[in-house]
């Protein structure tokens, strides 16, 4: 299986980290992975996004223009990437910040009130983990345990007290779809 996805949002919403966790988790499971960030002026003020491929086979093009999966954390991201999703693909969107419904009818759509759930858990900044949990609930491309390993690697030791909170957020996201 090959999962080709674009994760997008405002700078600061943690979409780059979301992508890195998926890539790192895939790598620890022996899969082929690539992570390609947007860089340059679009990051400043507009949308940040990264393209991630997780596959059983070596990754060809790391640049994906027709993703199977899009995670949109804000409206500009959904506006930008909704049309690019392959028919039959998946759109996970942050319904806390995106008030319109997706236009596409030929894809699967999952609305995740990511900020609301994150706030319930007491920290708005883990909305990305809620969305990631929902994505993995729908497409279990890597084990949740591998994501936790990746988180442990990504967070500096003095932030490790946040690991249980991140795990809760992932879990809430996953339960939303499962």
């Amino acid at each position, binding site marked *: 299986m090959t999962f080709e996805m674009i994760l997008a949002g405002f700078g600061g919403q943690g979409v780059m980290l979301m992508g*890195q966790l998926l*890539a*790192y988790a895939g*790598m620890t499971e022996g899969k*082929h*992975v*690539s*992570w*390609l*960030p947007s*860089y*340059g002026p679009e990051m400043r003020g507009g949308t940040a996004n990264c393209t991630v491929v997780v596959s059983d086979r070596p*990754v*060809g*093009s*790391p*640049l994906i*223009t*027709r993703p199977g999966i899009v995670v949109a954390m804000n409206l500009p991201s959904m506006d930008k990437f909704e049309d690019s999703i392959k028919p039959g693909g998946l759109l996970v969107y942050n319904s806390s910040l995106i008030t319109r419904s997706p236009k596409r009818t030929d894809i699967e759509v999952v609305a995740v009130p990511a900020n609301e759930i994150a706030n319930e858990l007491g920290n708005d900044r883990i909305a990305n983990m809620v969305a990631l949990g929902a994505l993995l609930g729908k497409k279990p491309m890597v084990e949740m345990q591998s994501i936790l390993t990746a988180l442990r690697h990504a967070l500096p030791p003095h932030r490790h007290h946040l690991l249980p909170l991140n795990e809760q957020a992932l879990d809430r996201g996953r339960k939303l779809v499962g």
Partner: protein
Amino acid sequence: MGERILMKGNEAIGEAAIRAGCRHFFGYPITPQNELPEYMARRLPEIGGAMVQAESEIAAINMVYGAAGAGVRVMTSSSSPGISLKQEGLSYIAGAELPCVVVNMVRGGPGLGGIQPAQGDYWQATRGGGHGDYRLIVLAPATIQEMVDTVQDAFDLADKYRNPVMILGDGMLGQMMEPVEFREQTVSSLAEKEWATTGLRNHPGRRNVINSLYLQPDKLEEHNQHLQRKYAEIAANEVRYEEVDVEDADLVVAAYGTTARIVRSAMEEARREGLRVGLIRPITLWPFPVEPFARAAERAHAFLSVEMSAGQMVEDVRLAVNGKKPVYFYGRTGGMVPTPEGVLAKFREILEGKHNG
């Protein structure tokens, strides 16, 4: 076997350089390669090396000239406009026959251009780039793992031939992350750098001089003839390339670096559609792999060069194919990256054109 770690291309080059024995780095910031000098600035002082952020690219390449003259493994990196500024220094370094490794994470041009990936510096890299008759050895990796492996190769080639080596990447290869493994390196059994200017204390009775100035024309011609013999030796011994599905291909594609990966994705789809497409991926852009193209020209019907440029490597493909078969071109410029779909459409256009014709 080492463990696999997830690394950005720019940082992976830095780590690979350190493992290859590089302790000196001189640079000046420019996107999209900044993570490489940043990595060196952090790591080199920890291990007894030095990273200097120079006042300009020109200063940086001349610091490389000095360090290379002293016989140490030295690297600089930049991106297109910055590499243009380094050309005078590169010509001097090539003229003085000094080893060094230069990384160019190419971005869109000309002029200040943009900061997104491009391959428009192919001509500059493969034709010397500065003044005079000289060559750089130019290596073009396509994955972060290959980039890591290439760095060791680059330093070894530089030392072996006393010649500057360029690693030609692009913004995408610099910015993306992939798993890499730093393999156990074999210690290179290269000759002592007896020519290095390390002080008379270290080479008593022998004055070592680093120089590219020859005012007597006959001496300069002699020097040029020596350089040309060296380049011929490199061309005979150091060509590197990869062939994929070329044996039965009707259409043989030439692509390097990131673009070769996009072509691979397009090829998979093409093969599913029954289109016989193969790939020759030059890994050394100079010396260019002439022989596989000449061989493929005996049986393939057509060639296609795919590049993030307006058509540069395509000229080397035409020289190698030597008029035997048509050579087509497909490219994007300015930081726009070819898509597998766009490349596939070009395959169909060429192959169906052939069937109709």
